[in-house]
């Protein structure tokens, strides 16, 4: 035993150490660029004051959130987007992915590219394009008039404005999630499908009995990332509707931005609200992992 301790580490310990050496740079970087700002944000959220003359005020910013009708409104808006948009988008992405996974389909590459392409556009520019599409005399209303229907003032009503944001989000992100499913589908043996067909399973049965269960980890992953993304939604709210009419389409991140840069700056309060978003994301992710991962 004394010999091995002179030599230093056992083989296993060496392997462990090598692993840690490789991990260290990444861990340090993540700590420095992610966790350090998060801790700073938390400290900031405990302060209050004008401009940069801040002083500690305990949890007053957090109790303030409870009394803020605007925050409640933005919380409602964000969760409304989440509840409608994420399921619709993921189901669409799943359907598209299983259609495009068909070996007999021609021009597969072309279709895949077309559906993925929206993802390559900048968030700001696509939001502005959607705004002009849905403008009072925009393309959508021109088409509606062509069919003899009354034009809709999309941005004048809270619900239609929210609908436009959801449509835009679905257009932008469905292809992105579809790619995850497509790659997940590559890992499912084609022979499984062949066997199912020989056994006389209908396409619908194959989808629900084979595709969905085997894709479960990927579905879980996309649900979590989409939830995360939707809770932090910002560009669409700012550029597509600018939160309007009133504040009925404003998201939480947009409100945080306004609190820091548009209104008289209140960084402590803004930081407190972003900590709340962080907690919400974490809670939802834990819930989804508990529900999705049964093993």
């Amino acid at each position, binding site marked *: 035993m004394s010999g091995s301790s002179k030599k230093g580490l056992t083989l296993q310990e060496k392997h462990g150490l090598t692993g840690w050496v490789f991990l260290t740079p990444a861990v340090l970087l*993540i700590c420095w660029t*992610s966790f350090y700002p998060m801790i700073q944000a938390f400290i900031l959220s405990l302060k*209050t004051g*004008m*401009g*940069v003359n801040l002083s500690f005020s305990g949890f*007053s*910013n957090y109790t*303030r959130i409870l*009394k*803020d*009708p*605007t925050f409640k409104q933005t919380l409602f808006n964000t969760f409304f987007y989440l509840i409608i948009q994420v399921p619709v988008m993921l189901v669409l992405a799943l359907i598209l992915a299983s259609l495009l996974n068909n070996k007999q389909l021609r021009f597969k590459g072309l279709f895949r590219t077309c559906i993925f392409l929206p993802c390559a556009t*900048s*968030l*700001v520019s696509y939001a*502005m394009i959607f*705004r002009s599409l849905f*403008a*009072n*005399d925009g393309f959508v209303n021109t088409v509606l008039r062509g069919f003899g229907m009354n034009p809709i*003032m999309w*941005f*004048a*009503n*809270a619900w239609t404005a929210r609908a436009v944001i959801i449509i835009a989000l679905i257009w932008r992100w469905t292809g992105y999630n579809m790619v995850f499913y497509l790659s997940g589908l590559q890992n499912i043996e084609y022979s499984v499908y062949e066997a199912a067909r020989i056994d006389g399973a209908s396409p619908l049965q194959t989808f629900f009995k084979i595709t969905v269960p085997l894709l479960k*980890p990927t579905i*879980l*992953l996309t649900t*979590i*990332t989409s939830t*995360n*993304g939707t809770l*932090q939604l*910002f*560009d669409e709210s*700012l*550029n597509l509707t*600018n939160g*309007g*009419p*009133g*504040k009925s389409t404003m998201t939480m*991140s947009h409100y945080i*931005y*306004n609190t*820091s*840069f*548009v*209104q*008289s*700056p*209140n*960084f*402590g*309060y803004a930081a407190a609200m972003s900590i709340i978003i962080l907690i919400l994301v974490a809670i939802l*992710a834990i819930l989804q*992992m508990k529900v999705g*991962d049964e*093993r």
Partner: protein
Amino acid sequence: MKRKLISALLALTMVISMTACGGGSGASGDSGSGDAAADDGGAAADAGTDAAADSGAGQEDAAPVEGGSADENTLTVWTWDPNFNIYAIQKAAEIYAQDHEGFKVEVSEVQSDDIETRLTTAVAAGDLSTLPDIFLMQDNSFQKYATNYPDIFTDLTSSGIDFSQFSSAKVAYSTLDGKNYGIPFDNGAVINCMRTDYLEEAGFTIDDFTDITWSDYMEKAKVVLEKTGQPILTSQAGSPDLIMMMLQSCGSSLFNEDGSVNIAGNEELKQMMDIYVQMVADGTLVEVTDWDQYIASLNNGTAVSALNGCWIMASITVAEDQSGKWAITNMPKLDGVSNATNYSNNGGSSWAISSNCQKVDLAIDFMNSTFAGSNALYDDVISKGALATWAPAGESEAYNESVEFFGNDAIYAKIVEFATHTPSNITGAYYYDARDAVGVALSNICQQGADIDSEIQTAQETVEFNMGG
């Protein structure tokens, strides 16, 4: 093992997406605000936002010069709009260089809200060394920055600049607690630009809209709509610009002298909301989605008039085929309000010398001999529609020239005269909070049919809430 792998993967993607989102939202926020400046033109309400929108797109690659210049005779400047503010400061430098060999300005084009974001960021980071020697700031934002971050400005009170030569209402924007932080630049006097050909069709002349009241205006607007089929006004939905102009025209503000919120129980404000809502109901005021559509409505003849700061002329004169079909007069005034006038202000900005400036004497002397002391400068920049708030400039010949586009009227002298009658208003640090709250109330009332009184009450509470934290 597999489970571990999956959870590790999940953790990894979350980390990646979080960091990616963090970086992404920062960058898009930056570019987003530039775009927002363009479509939010009404809110930004600066001199020639429209032109800023045009120029903004092409210059994303050029990072603004940060900090001062090493050269003794060079001042660094942040401002926006090549056709307006940048032109003016370069012209000023040219004039100053005639007596001061080797003087130069190094101008970086930065949009107004990007300047504000940069200032906020610099102060928050505790590093003011990135600030230029001179920057331009919206009058409406000035109090917010002077209150929150007085450290970024050089106090100009005893700099030798004669502030009494500027209109007092204008100087008030950049003055806090008796200290002058800014040198006033352009004028945002409200003008009523009307299409005379449409008016003629409806049986009116421009004189029928001069020195009138809002009730008179609304009746005539109905006749115009009936005869020409066009609304008299267009407005960006949710933008409280028009309300703010009306409010200032009777010397009223969203704040009281002591800084408390003056929204609920503000009789003038309620009357203005009523006028706005009634005009929307009559169809004489049509709301459009964004700033671009507002400008389009003026250029393509789907609006009979524009009621806005005089910088709107730059956008109107773009439609050269409409030359001679426009005329300028003052805005309507409120009925039954004792302080009501036919004059107001929307937009305009002031120059500030940053606290980071190492050549304060040079910067002050430059400003004192140009923006606060050069007729030649103001005579030149008037061709761009930049009207002086420096009183001696208004007496110059250039201001009496007739302008063909506006029916050979001497519009500049007219606008300078409007400016002298404009009542002052109180902005304060929470100006944008209050303005936004009124905008939200207005859009809820017009678009969702909400009750005026309860919306005004909500607006009051929102601003009080923001001030409470």
